């Protein structure tokens, strides 16, 4: 991917929370950073390349920064995964790289906090970028070669919802749901020659593509996480994420991923910690 496009991608995901943090510097705010290791299990059908389904498991580290202001909650999350996928026939495999960034803003629907032993629901919006690129490798004889390259990129404006429940000293569960309404989707051209760069003998992966509204690009993302503050501001976190995506243009791509993660969480500048 072009480095300029990557920087643009990172910048647009980073500047909104930065601004909101500056304006939300007020009493009673909470900030936390969670860093996770994880495993992802991906299943993918991309008819641009093949009617064969590929599946596999790989590493999926992630991080999330959460800022709870008086007027709303902000979150910035990112994840990455690398996997080797296999198919029913053992002379095919796929190497996949995926990255994901999201900024979300939520407003609690009722006046309440997550730490007062009752569930709190919030609704909001988020912007996200999800990109996955995969090389379909074949084993014609004795060594693996790249047969075709494909990718799926989705930069979306999403509807977001969140539910939290806190109890005891520093226990909290969260459920988050995201549904993209408007997306810019990058997919290979129908003919794979359309993106082929003959000078470098490889495909030019495009970061951006066509703008689509739901359900032309359908993506559903659900995250469940649990955290427990163990000592001072330091705690542990564990979670599960499910993501499903489907886009029919120019060829059908359909995939889903289950991710399990665990990590540490640090609450900083939190005067109210442990005061509930």
């Amino acid at each position, binding site marked *: 991917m072009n480095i300029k496009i990557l920087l643009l991608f990172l910048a647009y995901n980073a500047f909104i929370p930065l601004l909101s943090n500056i304006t939300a510097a007020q009493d009673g705010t909470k900030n936390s950073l969670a860093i996770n290791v994880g495993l992802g299990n991906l299943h993918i059908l991309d008819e641009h390349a093949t009617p064969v389904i590929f599946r596999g498991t790989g590493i999926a580290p992630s991080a999330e920064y959460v800022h709870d202001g008086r007027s709303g909650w902000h979150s910035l999350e990112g994840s990455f995964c690398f996997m080797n996928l296999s198919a029913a026939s053992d002379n095919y495999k796929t190497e996949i790289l995926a990255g994901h960034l999201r900024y979300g803003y939520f407003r609690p629907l009722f006046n309440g906090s997550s730490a007062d032993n009752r569930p709190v629901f919030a609704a909001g919006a988020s912007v996200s970028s999800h990109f996955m690129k995969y090389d379909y490798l074949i084993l014609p004889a004795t060594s693996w070669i790249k047969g075709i390259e494909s990718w799926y990129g989705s930069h979306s404006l999403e509807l977001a919802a969140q539910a939290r429940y806190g109890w005891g000293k520093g226990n909290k569960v969260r459920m988050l749901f995201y549904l993209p309404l408007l997306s810019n989707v990058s997919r290979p051209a129908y003919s794979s020659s359309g993106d082929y760069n003959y*000078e470098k003998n490889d495909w030019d992966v495009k970061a951006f593509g066509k703008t689509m509204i739901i359900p032309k690009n359908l993506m559903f993302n659900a995250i469940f996480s649990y955290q427990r503050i163990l000592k001072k501001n330091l705690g542990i976190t564990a979670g599960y994420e499910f993501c499903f995506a489907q886009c029919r243009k120019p060829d059908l791509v359909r995939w889903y991923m289950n991710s399990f993660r665990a990590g540490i969480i640090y609450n900083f500048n939190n005067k109210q910690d442990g005061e509930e």
Partner: protein
Amino acid sequence: MVKNSLLAALAVLLLAGCERMLIGPDPEDTAGSNFDVLWKTLDEKYGLFPVTDVDWNSLYGLYRGQLDESTTDNELWNICCQLLAPLENGHITLQNKGATKYFTPEFPDVEIFNGFNIDVVRSRYLSGPVKTGEGNITYGRINETNLGYICIHSFGGASNGRDWVRDMADVVTEFSGCDGIIIDVRNNGGGFTRNDLYAASLFIDRDITYYYSRLKTGPGHSDFGDRIAKIVNPRSDVPGFTKKNVVLTNRFTASGAEAFTLICKNLPYSTQIGDTTIGAIGEVTHVAQMPNGWILKYPCTLTVLADGTSPENIGIAPDILINNTMRDVNAGRDRVVEYAIQYLQQP
């Protein structure tokens, strides 16, 4: 222990069930399913139906009915080859898992392949022949003339990854004092486009639009985008050779070597001698996977010339038609080279 095993089994069942529910079923590895994948892949993606006189739907009906649960791998292979044969394109290849079988619908008589032997050229016509470009180039001066000879065996990549085609610039520079050059691309099956373009750029004195490419844009046999001009420019970083040249071709001149031939065909100082090329020019960037591990490669673009015709499945006809016979080669002669020498020596 039992409880854990049951939980693990349940998890596997759930995950497997999820896949079927969320993505759909994986295509089965049966004769019928494999045939369907092969037929449908080409039906939707193959770029040369507009220049192919076949009724693809009727071929499906003809062969699909012959498949059932008792069809063996060999029988499926034969039926798939029969399905592909009428497409008559040398860029389609089907190979089985393990690469013990290989099929292409267009494969000229092997006697034509044997009608060119570089050893005959080296020993009879060249003084001090040299091999360079990681074995892809043989060159030397034609005996008792001021002519150069360059045989480009392939435009493929070198096994060590070296950018061998740049050696062409040194060869051309060495021949800068020659009156003419014979460029031999007989039995050259093509390779990387960048290599044939680099080689051709050393022989041109102007920008050349050598063909137009039309990309498939949808599953219909007529779903194509606008023409995209394929242009090659003369090199500015190294000296080229823009005096008279002759390009030697035969029925095994294919793909990138045909693009090279087309480029030279646009030059007033270049003449194509030999036989018509194979007619497999379109870009092959698609590799399809069948459920049983067989691999299908095919062109997914339509190549057209400036006049709207396509050289696909036809080839590029020479300006002067002349071929070797096995008798010539066995006698240590190459009549095509001999004719080219005479031709270039004409005032």
